[in-house]
């Protein structure tokens, strides 16, 4: 086996120019395939994180800060689940506006701050400039509330502790109301990058999964804030800070509820917000958007697939035709055809791995020097799986091709014909 590997390596060294040409050709095919698969999977980018919610029965809503259910403001998911038939607390996931302020020279400024229910911050991790996203924050038990910020002034630093105020309106026994100011310490655990997309409702622009997200830059510009603060709902509740539902809410209901209850739910939801969609329509629109997008790139995808197959076959045919005489010589010297095919297989494996390595390195270099700033490039298990399929296809051809060529010839015929 060692000698077989040695001969395969010699094959690589021997035909340097041809091998370099083949490796570059295969690297280009690998790169095109990775880009293509990235492009295809990116179409699901906005759909997959909340697939579980989108594909269930229920409603996709935009809740305003003034939303009330059963006469009180919505402060947590159970406030909604209690009102909607067939909805459990864990099946309602929403975002909330957090009532935090900054008091400066006796003036009070509301902070632009939101909190997310667990499944929302766990299922979508935005691009971070530094630090941790909400899902990666460990509970330290300190009194400081962890926060992820987007700061347009770029003056905040990771680990900074900020002192803000929470204002509660409380009534005494006589019914006299007053504002109670509470000091709150926030610890910056993460800073979002400029192009980060977060779960943030703008309007039902498309009626599909794209409506779930907005970029932090757009949000802060639109709302006129310098800084955006994002929290975990449980931290806000633990610190007893007032919050109100604001923005996105997925309300999943049990699919077995009767039509009558479904109609009642519809009435309840209309009472909560006018800005909502049934999830089955939301899903239908999302699927249509994804299918339309995929249809647009499908011809290119098929061309690349065809090109990959043609290149794999031609590369192996060229290599085998070039090497078949040597295989016959090895045969005369005491090698079996099977072992000759193994040489071809190992040689192909070296070639393919070198090509893959070249492709990945080149793509990473181009990515980091920003050549592909407008192109989707992702390394996910699917891309690795597709590359693996290409490697296997190449190996199969590398094994079969010598067999096809030598199947009907004896070594004598190969030697005499060459």
């Amino acid at each position, binding site marked *: 086996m060692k000698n077989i590997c*040695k001969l395969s390596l010699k094959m690589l060294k021997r035909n340097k120019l041809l091998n370099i040409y083949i490796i570059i050709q295969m690297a280009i095919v690998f790169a095109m395939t990775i880009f293509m698969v990235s492009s295809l999977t990116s179409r699901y980018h906005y759909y997959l994180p909340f697939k579980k919610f989108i594909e269930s029965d229920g409603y996709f809503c935009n809740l305003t800060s003034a939303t009330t259910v059963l006469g009180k403001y919505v402060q947590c998911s159970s406030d909604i689940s209690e009102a909607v038939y067939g909805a459990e607390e864990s099946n309602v996931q929403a975002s909330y506006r957090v009532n935090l302020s900054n008091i400066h020279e006796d003036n009070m400024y509301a902070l632009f701050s939101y909190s997310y229910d667990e499944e929302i911050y766990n299922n979508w991790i935005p691009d971070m400039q530094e630090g941790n996203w909400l899902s990666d924050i460990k509970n330290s038990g300190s009194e400081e509330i962890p926060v992820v910020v987007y700061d347009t002034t770029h003056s905040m630093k990771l680990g900074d502790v900020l002192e803000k105020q929470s204002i509660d309106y409380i009534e005494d026994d006589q019914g006299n109301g007053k504002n109670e100011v509470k000091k709150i310490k926030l610890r910056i655990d993460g800073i979002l990058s400029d192009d980060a997309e977060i779960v943030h409702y703008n309007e039902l622009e498309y009626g599909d999964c794209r409506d779930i997200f907005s970029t932090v830059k757009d949000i802060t510009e639109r709302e006129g804030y310098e800084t955006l603060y994002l929290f975990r709902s449980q931290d806000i509740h633990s610190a007893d800070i007032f919050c109100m539902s604001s923005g996105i809410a997925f309300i999943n209901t049990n699919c077995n509820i009767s039509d009558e209850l479904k109609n009642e739910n519809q009435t309840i939801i209309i009472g909560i917000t006018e800005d909502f969609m049934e999830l089955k329509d939301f899903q239908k629109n999302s699927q249509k958007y994804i299918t339309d997008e995929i249809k647009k790139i499908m011809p290119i995808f098929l061309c690349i697939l065809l090109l990959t197959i043609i290149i794999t076959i031609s590369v192996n045919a060229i290599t085998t035709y070039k090497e078949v005489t040597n295989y016959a*010589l*090895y045969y005369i010297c*005491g090698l079996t055809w099977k072992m000759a095919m193994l040489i071809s297989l190992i040689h192909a494996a070296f070639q393919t791995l070198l090509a893959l390595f070249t492709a990945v390195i080149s793509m990473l270099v181009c990515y980091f020097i920003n050549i592909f700033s407008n192109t989707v490039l992702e390394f996910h298990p699917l891309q690795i799986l597709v590359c693996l399929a290409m490697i296997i296809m190449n190996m199969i051809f590398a094994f079969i091709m010598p067999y096809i060529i030598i199947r009907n010839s004896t070594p*004598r015929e190969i030697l005499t014909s060459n």
Partner: protein
Amino acid sequence: MIKLSDIRKIYNKGKSNEFEALKEVSLTINDGEMTAVIGKSGAGKSTLLHILACIDSYEDGEYYIDDMLVKNLSEKKLAEIRNSKIGMVMQDYALVDDFSCIENVLLPLDFAKNKKANKTELAMNALKSVGMDGMAKKPVNKLSGGQKQRVAIARAVVNEPSIILADEPTGALDSKTSAEIMGLFHKLNENGKTIIIVTHDMEIANQCGRIIEIFDGKIKF
């Protein structure tokens, strides 16, 4: 000992261009013999040599090497015979062009079932025996025809096979070099090797102890 009995070889069997290259060929070659196989082009002499080298098949008959019936052997066993019992020298040298002399000579040692520890030393000895040890590291595509044939002979003998088969070994060489190459074959024969040389050159054939003539696929007596 080599023994052939009623060997028939048919090319393109069942096709319109079917051709019987060997017709019931029977012959015995004893150990240590130096035999020339002669005949016109297309007579079947190379076909016979390739069957003897276990690199071509045959339709009928029986072929024994040292009392071993070749037809019944597995692909692996045949490879072992080609590696350990037979050394092959071809008219066009059949060397891997981009390999150096020593790399070519090392090939049979690399493929041997019983691995030898001192492979490089054995390869160098084989090259020395043909006077090519000084060019061991030179790529064979930089050598002259005569030098290439010497390397081919070194490769054929490196595993110390008992039989050396040569297909027109001097066909591409000038007379002086041919004489040198034949000298090497004589030396090998003196050392006990069985030598079978296919040639159409009577001068070469006459240097062998026995001449077998093939005519239209049959041995001419």
